[in-house]
């Protein structure tokens, strides 16, 4: 036990004395959360639009006002003719153009089908889709209000309610995502680097030639990083809650346990990497390529899994981060309890056991 204590103490010295790395480890989560929160956002705010009003009636005026009143749009210019639209887009000033046909008023009054054209700059497809959706919803609502009291037998009303994230804030998406990435980074990459560093510096040779059991060497190296990862979790949660208003609706204890489970899964991956390589460089590259990229791209953090090709959807099942993000969203946003995340937790636990098993098989009690 004394041996174990001194080993952890030694490991803490390594971490605390390497000021630069420590600073990066503690500063990165904050930087990432703030970046995602303030800069990299796909929410729409004051998007500039152009209006080409050929009907010049009160309906087109009212619709335009509704659009502006929503806060999402800002009128950039009122156009006079169709030719101006393309020119305007090319100058990059507007994101969307709304074209009211000259027969708008007339058709509406006579209950005839009519069209309002929305043209969006799809160089940024996400923004274009969002803008079109917002504008369609606003126009649709207006039309329904106008039709009230009149007989409109063919009309189907859709009422949309966004559950759990009514304002569609992207913060709710990226806080679980950033948390996953950071925990993966600190746990898997840092441990694989820390273990291979001992190999590179030759100290592993001395440790192996000592009575220390291999399991003790590994566990001793890993424990400080568990603490570091959990500290990062707390920082991200605090930032998410107090700066961006991210709720934690479920039980905090359950959330903590699930984080611990994911950290252990990531650590076991880090250990697995370190058993397969002898250099810090290689360990870092493998961590980045094999762990970080899938964690960012295939976990549903940035790209929805449902819209991936079938092959990638299947592959995403073996990414621990995918299951962790599902768990996080369930607990934090939906406020569900263990009864709704046990399946995902079980999958994570199974993966962890598998990685640990393979690591133990791969760990060498000698130099070769």
């Amino acid at each position, binding site marked *: 036990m*004394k041996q174990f204590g*001194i080993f952890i103490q030694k490991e803490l010295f390594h971490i605390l004395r390497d000021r630069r790395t420590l600073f990066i480890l503690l500063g990165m989560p904050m930087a990432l959360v703030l970046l995602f929160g303030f800069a990299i956002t796909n929410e729409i705010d004051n998007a500039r639009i152009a209006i080409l009003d050929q009907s010049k009636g009160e309906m087109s005026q009212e619709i335009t006002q509704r659009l502006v009143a929503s806060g999402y749009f800002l009128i950039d210019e009122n156009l006079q003719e169709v030719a101006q639209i393309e020119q305007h887009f090319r100058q990059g000033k507007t994101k969307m153009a709304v074209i009211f046909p000259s027969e708008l008023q007339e058709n509406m009054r006579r209950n005839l089908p009519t069209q309002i054209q929305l043209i969006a700059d799809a160089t940024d497809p996400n923004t274009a889709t969002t803008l079109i959706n917002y504008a369609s919803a606003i126009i649709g609502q207006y039309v329904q209000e106008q039709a009230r009291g009149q007989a409109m037998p063919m009309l189907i009303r859709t009422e949309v309610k966004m559950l759990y994230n009514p304002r569609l804030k992207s913060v709710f998406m990226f806080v679980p995502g950033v948390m996953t990435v950071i925990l993966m980074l600190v746990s898997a990459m840092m441990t694989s680097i820390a273990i291979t560093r001992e190999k590179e510096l*030759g100290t592993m040779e*001395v440790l192996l*030639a000592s009575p220390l059991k291999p399991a003790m060497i590994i566990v001793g190296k890993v424990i400080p990083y568990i603490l570091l990862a959990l500290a990062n979790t707390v920082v991200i949660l605090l930032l998410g809650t107090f700066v961006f208003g991210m709720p934690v609706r479920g039980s905090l204890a359950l959330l903590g346990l699930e984080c611990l489970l994911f950290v252990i899964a990531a650590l076991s991956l880090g250990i697995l990497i370190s058993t397969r390589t002898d250099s810090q460089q290689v360990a870092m590259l493998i961590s980045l390529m094999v762990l970080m990229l899938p964690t960012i791209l295939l976990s549903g953090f940035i790209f929805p899994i449902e819209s991936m090709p079938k092959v990638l959807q299947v592959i995403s099942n073996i990414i621990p981060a995918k299951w962790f993000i599902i768990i996080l969203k369930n607990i934090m946003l939906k406020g569900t309890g263990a009864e709704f995340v046990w399946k995902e937790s079980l999958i994570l636990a199974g993966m962890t056991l598998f990685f640990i098993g393979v690591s133990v098989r791969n760990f060498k009690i000698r*130099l070769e």
Partner: protein
Amino acid sequence: MPLRPSNHLTLNRITMATPAIQVENISKRYGKNVLALNQVSLEVGQGELFGLIGPDGAGKTTLIRILATLLLADKGYAAVNGWEVRRDYRQIRSHIGYMPGRFSLYQDLSVEENLHFFATIFGTTIKENYELIRDIYVQLEPFRTRKAGKLSGGMKQKLALCCALIHKPVVLLLDEPTTGVDPVSRKEFWEMLKRLKEKGIAILVSTPYMDEASLCNRVALIQKGAILSIDEPEKIVSGFDKPLLAVRTNDMYRLIHDLRDFESTHSAFPFGEFVHLSLNNPIWPEAIHAYLAGKQHTGIEIKPAQATIEDAFMELMTQGEMVD
């Protein structure tokens, strides 16, 4: 393959009789083509200071790592204090002191922290075995709080030796402890080894420096994975029976080549500021003088020389080359 009993009941009985290190026909191959050790056998007695001498790549590190249970031999039997290296590796790891060739302490920990760390993982304390390391540690004491990475080369090796000694090992395995260390520290280091030997610790030390051989009880000369000779240093020197001359001129580089072309020359090697010339048959120094003068050498100086252990080693190694 004979196996030795390793349980504690028989321990005391066998330690008196068993050698500290026993190596029988050990072979080790890396990959397909590199034969690092070829049928190596040697024995180190209890309390003996044994030198393993040979150039880089001779197989010294491989042999020491096999004894430290860090590598497995392909063939042969090896035991440390009666413990077989493959089966009883746990016993060996608790009872040997091992110092790898490369400085392998924690550079970001202080002198004291390193020592405390190694004492604790071996289940002991600095206080308990302070007596053993006192002579060495007093020199390190002024730098107690300095980071190990900031020590000089000699100090680093002294600290590494302290760390390898702190659990009172029965056998010390030192892999090139004096490589890259200044001459004064080298001398001090060997004096420490001598004192440790007097305390009954068996020591196997490898070195590429042939002059260190004379400080050992016995030495093994190893080259290309094979042992050329094992004996006491004095006996190895007296085994050198060829006439030996020390020669010097103003152009040393050309001198070696010219001497090697001389008909009676057996070998010519640089030795300090002279060339040591061994001869196949005794001839008058005047004949050599005349030969060198004929080759336009100036400042010629020739005198008889006393064979040293290095001459004996060079001779053994040349023979080794010729067998190849």
